[in-house]
């Protein structure tokens, strides 16, 4: 299981970066989306991977139950939302950039002035 998860995360990263290295600006955007998933999984991998055990404490129990690490999960929860914010902003920004520069070729977008 662990090995498969690691390989999957590696593949997702590879795919994301391949897309980001394309000249089409839309593919850059798709790569960014994919990168978000890959990064979230990477953080998730550190939480201990305990099957079917939501992190709930038993009422009145003295010792914590055997569950996954809650900290990475809290981080991912934040990360999911933030990456959506970044992606939404990027989509609009890239759409406008492509329209303004009249090209979607990343290599032609080299000037900061329009």
């Amino acid at each position, binding site marked *: *299981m*662990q090995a*498969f998860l*690691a390989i*999957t*995360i*590696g*593949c*997702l*990263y*590879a*795919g994301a*970066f*391949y897309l980001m*290295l*394309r000249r*089409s600006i*839309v593919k850059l955007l*798709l790569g960014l*989306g*994919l990168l978000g*998933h890959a990064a*979230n*999984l990477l953080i*998730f991998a*550190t*939480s201990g991977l*305990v*099957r*079917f055990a939501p*992190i*709930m*404490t038993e009422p009145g129990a003295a010792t*914590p139950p055997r*569950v*996954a*690490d*809650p*900290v990475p*999960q*809290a981080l*991912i*929860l*934040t990360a*999911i*939302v*933030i990456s*959506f*914010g970044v*992606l939404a*902003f990027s*989509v609009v*920004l890239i*759409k*406008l950039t492509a*329209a*303004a520069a009249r090209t*979607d070729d990343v*290599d032609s977008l*080299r000037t900061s002035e329009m």
Partner: protein
Amino acid sequence: MLAVAVAIGFVVALLAPWCVRRAGAVWGPRLLVAYPLSVFVLALSRGYDAAHVEAAFAWVPRFGLRWSVLVDGWSILFAALISGIGGLVVLYGAAYLRHHEHLGRFYLYLIGFMAAMLGVVLASNLLLLFVCWELTSIFSYLLIGFEHEDTKSRKSALQALLTTGVGGLALVVACVLLRAEFGTWELAEMLRHAPEWSSPAMELATIILLLTAAFTKSAQFPFHFWLPSAMAAPTPVSAYLHSATMVKAGVFLLARFYPMFQEHWLWQPVLLVGGGATMFVGAALALSQRDLKLLLAYSTVSALGTLVFLLGVATHEAVAACVVFLVAHALYKGGLFFFAGIVDHETGTRDIEELGGLAREWPSLAVAASILALSMAGILPLFGFIAKELAYEAVLHAGLPLALALLVGCSALQVAVAGLAVARPLFSPPGSLAAPHHSPEHELTLGPWLLAAASLLFALWPRAGFTHLLAAAATGIAGESGELKLALWHGWTPALTLSLVTIALGVGAFLLRPLWTTVAAQGTRWKQVGPAFLYELAVSGLTQLAAWQTRKLQTGRLRQYQALVLTTAVGSVLLALPLAEGALPGLPRNGLYPTEAAVFVAMLAGMVITMVTSSRLTAIVGLGVTGYAVGVLFLMFGAPDLAMTQFAIETLTVILFVLVLYRLPRFESRSTPGARVRDAALASAVGASIAVLVLVLLADPTPSALAPYFLAHSEPAGHGRNVVNVILVDFRSLDTLGEITVLGLAAIGVGTLMAMRGKYR
């Protein structure tokens, strides 16, 4: 007390501009003299016979940085020179720069420098010494560039800063090595042990670094070029920093580490050869100068060489001679710079070919200047004579005939230089120049007079207290006490014969100077390969290198930046990989359920679809599949909150993409097959690195230290059983607030961009 006095100096420096503004250009400096004067008295009132560390206070205790002061003859002698001559410079500067609009700023720099220099010579804590050492470089930079409207001024200032800055870097590394060896930052403790080094390589490295620091600071060959350039500074500054005090900091440092390293095989030869070369180069170059200040600057270089050279002779006698010569030089050279400043200030020129007949105009100043010049030439009955005799004796007794010949030759050149600097302007027939209308102010002539009087009195009546201080300084350097007798007349000794030879040679050189200048004029093409030229080359080379690498790295191509970052990341992982050796067997294995395998396959399938399709809609669907699969995985591993958020956000993302889909450009095939292969290889390498990292991470059995805390406190402290929830809204609620802010900002950004959209439709 002395530690406090150093600290107070920086406060006085900061108050100086205010003081000058409030009390005026005349009384402001007179008030400021109180600081050097009180330090002078305080320093000489210390008991300095036995080296001891004075009460210190902590500055940055975490780094072992303390204001601790090492009091012995050597540091007290230096402190007295710095504050004594400093006081004269403060008064002299007031008259010299009276009408300068930035007089307050001048005193800020000058007093600041004084405090820093006191810190260098008094510090027992090496870090404090280093901080003050760098401060002297910085204040020197500010003072050389004081007339900052002048290009040459700025250039010289930068040259001095860069050259001494290299030395500063060397010094800090040397300090760290010393700390590593001795386990303390305190110089006093290091010197007390003076032991065997644990590794010869480390000792050698420390010596080379210390020599670099001292040679750059004290303008030793081949770093001597910055000192003559530093003459762009106002003359009071040249008198103070670039002859009497700062340039001697390197000599000070070498002397401080004398007991530790004098027996090392590298130490003595480098000091002898380096000092000797500097002594000769300085004197020879001085003789061909026409500018009074440059003449004195090159002769200062020569004198600094002599000091280093005497330390290199490494006998107790030579060390004592070094101390006496240092004091003699500070007295006469400080005074002669004051004289050069007066000449420049009153006549408007420093060219010795134009100057002449000044003795008739300024008879009393002429007497003072002549005394100073005679002291420089080492002529009876002045202090310079005693210093030179002691140096001759020391080298004679050390049995170094070649070194002795060199010393005699250079002293003879100094005689000629003294004649040029003083006899020419004073006594040669007046040149084309109009005679100055008024005699210089008393505040200007006070300095040369006092220093000339000191040069005379110290020689005629070497008081017991003064001799004692010099002997204590030699003891402070060498660590063992020896005898020091200061007397004008020793009887007819070989040293006296050598003195007579020196004077005869010097007069000869003075008369033959026209010949020498012609030869020197022929030799100007040697400048093409001189150290100053190499400096220029290095500076311009560095600028070009910076421009080149900026051009190469900052191309403005996004994809190239990405490739660079990714390559670096892969490289770092490869470098760190050996550290993870043996981690992988610890990987926990808890099998793979078919459902989990299906989720992984779905994730990768979605990704592949996104990558290969030529339809934009299909690509978005592929991305969505991956996203939902990630959500399902969250659900399977006990993270229902994550899964819910992931599903909601993924849905939103797909909707967003579809909404703008038909406004996005279509996919086109642009890259060449070669570029695709290259990008695929790079991306795969990154993916492989990440996979390895995850494996190493999962194999690490160290449990999280935070998890038990949150699990235990979630319900009692946060009143919630869903721990992830409690973390987000309670324990780390400020983070969540930040997250909401980011989302809000993104929304504002999107809104603004949408509003601009009409412009580019």
